[in-house]
């Protein structure tokens, strides 16, 4: 009996630990972040930030959240314990998405209005270099091995690969129309790029930049034009990829080995960016037009909760 109670207690504790994460969502039209408690899956707070917050990302020690506030031309730094903005970095004009390099001290920022990727030194709080890329730079990704950084330019429709040491362009690859997000796989060997208007995800060999696969999506009852590909999340074990399908209001689950679409989940309207929980068991989606976040239980293959947030949620991260 005692053993049983202990087991139940441990189970309860384990399930609590599994969901101890906190989810942060940037609300583009509200100039706020919504804070969601991962255990109760309820709104736990709202943090005012600068104007037009979009890209968000955690600091290396996971104690701070960086928020690109495009209309204020800077990156706000939010202290997650105090839940308020404690300072900011210069970012170049109109920052949209950024990525933290694995070295923990450099942020690579896409400046949408200036056709630049700015490299920000965090301790020094200054931009050390600018890399010229195509028109309307957007997606940013870094290879976990730290060797390269990737960027997409929406209007030029290119994937730009930047050497993280020399900060020079290694390659520019034409991809499908209006590329949004670029992600590097956990083993640093693949680059995944989503195309909003073609509604595809293309996978490239990171070394040769050769195309390994192009994945299309079909959603019954949704016109082809509205099946668009935006946010991408790759699991750390390399088994799965999740892709937000924008105004198709779906998230697709892909076998990352065979590149086959396994299933789609119905979520809120115009799903934009998505985030895996730190334990990889849940997926959180920012739904721009319905102003809510959907929570997908990946093992159970179902959407378990919808949580109202601010207006036009755009970016989402899950912090341990």
């Amino acid at each position, binding site marked *: 009996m005692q053993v049983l109670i202990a087991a139940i207690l441990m189970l309860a504790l384990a399930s609590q630990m599994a969901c101890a994460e906190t989810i942060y969502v940037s609300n583009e039209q509200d100039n706020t972040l919504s804070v969601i408690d991962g255990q109760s899956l309820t709104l736990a707070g709202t943090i005012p930030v600068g104007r037009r917050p979009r890209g968000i990302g955690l600091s290396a020690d996971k104690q701070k959240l960086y928020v690109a506030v495009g209309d204020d031309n800077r990156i706000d730094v939010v202290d997650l314990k105090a839940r308020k903005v404690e300072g900011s970095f210069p970012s170049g004009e109109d920052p949209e998405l950024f990525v933290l390099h694995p070295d923990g001290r450099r942020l690579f920022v896409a400046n*949408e*209005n200036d*056709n630049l990727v700015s490299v920000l030194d965090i301790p020094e709080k200054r931009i050390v270099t600018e890399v010229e890329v*195509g*028109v*309307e730079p957007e997606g940013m990704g870094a290879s976990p091995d730290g060797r390269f950084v990737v960027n997409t330019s*929406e*209007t*030029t*429709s*290119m994937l*730009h690969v930047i050497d993280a040491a020399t900060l020079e362009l290694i390659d*520019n690859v*034409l991809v499908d*129309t*209006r590329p949004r997000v670029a992600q590097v796989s956990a083993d640093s060997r693949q680059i995944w790029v989503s195309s*909003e*208007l*073609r509604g595809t995800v293309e996978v490239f060999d990171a070394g040769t930049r050769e195309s390994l696969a192009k994945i299309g999506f079909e959603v019954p009852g949704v*016109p*082809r*034009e*509205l099946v668009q590909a935006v946010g991408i999340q790759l699991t750390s074990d390399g088994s799965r990829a999740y892709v937000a399908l924008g*105004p198709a209001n779906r998230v697709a689950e892909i076998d990352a080995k065979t590149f086959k679409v396994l299933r789609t989940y119905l979520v809120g309207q115009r799903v934009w960016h998505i985030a895996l929980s730190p334990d990889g068991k849940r997926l959180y989606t920012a739904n721009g037009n319905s102003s809510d976040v959907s929570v997908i239980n990946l093992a159970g293959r179902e959407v378990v909760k919808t949580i109202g947030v601010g207006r036009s949620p755009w970016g989402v991260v899950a912090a341990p």
Partner: protein
Amino acid sequence: MKLLLALLMVVLAGPALAQEQSIAIGFVTQARDPIQPVSPLDQDIRDEGIAGARLGIADNVSTGRFTGHRFTLVERVIAKDAGPEDAIRDLAREGIRFVVADLDAPRLTAALSARDADRMLFLNARAPDDALRNESCRANLLHTIPNRAMLADAMAQYLMTKRWRRWFLVTGSAPGDRLQADAFRRAAARFGAEIVSEKEWTFKLGHARSDTGHVTLQSEIPVRTRAADHDVLVVSDEENEFGDYLSYRTAMPRPVAGTHGLVATGWSAVSEQWGATQLQSRFEKLAGRRMSAVDYAAWTAVRAVGEAAIRAGNSDPAKIMAYLRGPDFILAGFKGQGQSFRAWDGQMRQPILITGPRLLVSISPQAGYLHRGSELDTLGFDREESRCRF
């Protein structure tokens, strides 16, 4: 010295020396009187169209840097009363195969009949005439400006969504006003609206900006807008003669829609969705004013050629033309969906904005207007209705 020279050459050549391909795009416009502002809030526009094309070429050039394409824009302005034939011949002599036409329908037709024009591809960025997409269509003519039927259908879908189905149609006396009114009649029949009353606007208004202008308008317009009960007054006034003065002065308290009031248009400075903010701010930086629907059509035309050249991976004009018209072409036009050309009449299929004077109201096609192919083809002339025979 030799080293310096070598260095200079490298600098001049840039990264794409190896197999750089050149694509020159012609732009033909005609001298026009400056647009008379109606409201003191209106901006002075003297470079409508060409400013859009210049932004388009700048966007193409930025992309071409990475793909080894060199894009240039060759501008030709024809005199106010002159024909376009000489300009077209000049462009042909320079080897130009793509021409963006910022011309009205008669001059566009004359340009298409000029010598050597049949070897060129024209992209119409100004003339909204339905006939150019039907009886007068050409195999070497594409349209990036929406035609009148598309605009009327987009408006009709929105009005029907609102259940404002009884229309009072008021039409100006310019030829374009009558053609746009025809398009509204066609749209009413297609989507189930009823035109309960029609009036032609034949008299000149006292000038609203003179000291007593508003007094005259206030007494004249109620008299001229008496009609059978209706849900909405649909106005057709392409020349901006009277449309702006109707709102708030009509005999009955009804909204004004059409060419004024609530407007259906290919582009408007009020749009900031679907990434439009970026295009709007790029344009304002370049032109020092807001982007109009003609600017947008010119930008779209130049970008379409650029996109096709880069995707076709080739500077062979025949290949670029084939790609433009083919099933794989899509252009990102900041309206939420890829835009492409209809195979049957060369019209660019695109969402149409429904706008008020200060904000975006909606975008058509409206939800529920289904189509077995693209829902964008519920606007304008669908394949079965087209009278175009290439």
